[in-house]
């Protein structure tokens, strides 16, 4: 989906730089050794490169936890950056919780003597790394994540936010927590624009799923040609 969107945006005239964060994808390092600060630095590096190599306004685009990272990077900029979120997680604490929940769910699947989520939290608190589905969440990362949320500080120089989500088959309005976050961003003076569409939750499916409507809507919003 991301690669398809990159191509669609490039075809619409955008310069797009897609990065693999430290410990992710084809980048060096091990996920368990990555820190939030590493990821902030990776994003900064990418932004600096784009500033040098591409004219025009800058957008930071993130999917899920990447949207959270994008917002935290935007918060640290002195010049304006706009934000594009796909299915953003609302807070890092939720990311940590979901990671541990996935571990608990895995235990349910295997039918093993169950490790409780609160036990995993105690292990993190004791400085140990928790491994779930082949990914290690370090105590440091869990700690740093827990202090970040989409609305945890003013996004000083960001005026525009496009927030796109795959709604469920039965509900396309933003869930209550999302609505609250949007209202908070709008109250802080940002033009936050929410769109939801139907499609497969491509970020969590085993098979590769494509949601053409999300790609089209993203291009339409970014080029200002929605409903044109």
């Amino acid at each position: 989906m991301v690669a398809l969107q990159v191509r669609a945006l490039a075809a619409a005239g955008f310069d797009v730089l897609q990065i693999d964060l430290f410990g992710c994808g084809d980048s060096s390092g091990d996920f368990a050794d990555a820190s939030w600060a590493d990821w902030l630095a990776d994003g900064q590096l990418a932004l600096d490169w784009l500033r040098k190599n591409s004219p025009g306004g800058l957008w930071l685009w993130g999917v899920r936890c990447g949207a959270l990272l994008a917002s935290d990077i935007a918060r640290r900029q002195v010049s304006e950056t706009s934000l594009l979120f796909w299915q953003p997680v609302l807070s890092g604490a939720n990311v940590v919780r979901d990671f541990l929940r996935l571990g608990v769910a895995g235990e349910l699947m295997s039918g093993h003597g169950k490790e409780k989520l609160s036990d995993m939290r105690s292990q993190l608190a004791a400085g140990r790394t928790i491994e779930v589905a082949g990914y290690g969440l370090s105590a440091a990362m869990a700690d740093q994540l827990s202090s970040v949320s989409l609305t945890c500080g003013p996004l000083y120089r960001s005026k525009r936010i496009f927030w796109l989500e795959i709604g469920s088959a039965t509900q396309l309005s933003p869930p209550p927590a999302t609505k609250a976050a949007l209202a908070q961003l709008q109250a802080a003076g940002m033009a936050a624009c929410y769109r939801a569409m139907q499609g497969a939750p491509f970020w969590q499916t085993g098979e590769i799923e494509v949601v053409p409507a999300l790609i089209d809507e993203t291009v339409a919003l970014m080029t200002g040609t929605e409903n044109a």
Partner: protein
Amino acid sequence: MNIEQEVLAILDDAMSLKGRALQFSRDTVLLGALPELDSMAVLAVVSGLEARLDLTIDDDDIDGAVFATVGTLVDFVQGRFPG
């Protein structure tokens, strides 16, 4: 709000069953019976319950007994609502 229908819709979304879950009954066995109910789907059900029903699910609430059948899941959700 009909909690059972909401739960079935959330199950259907979480497992991408395209409407099949809407035909489930209270006795439908979940854990161990549905290949689509993997750990990501369990997480999606929990997140779906929280997001759509505005519930808070505590750290140690997720266990095998809750996810045994549609009935146990519905009863669990019912129990999270005051009154």
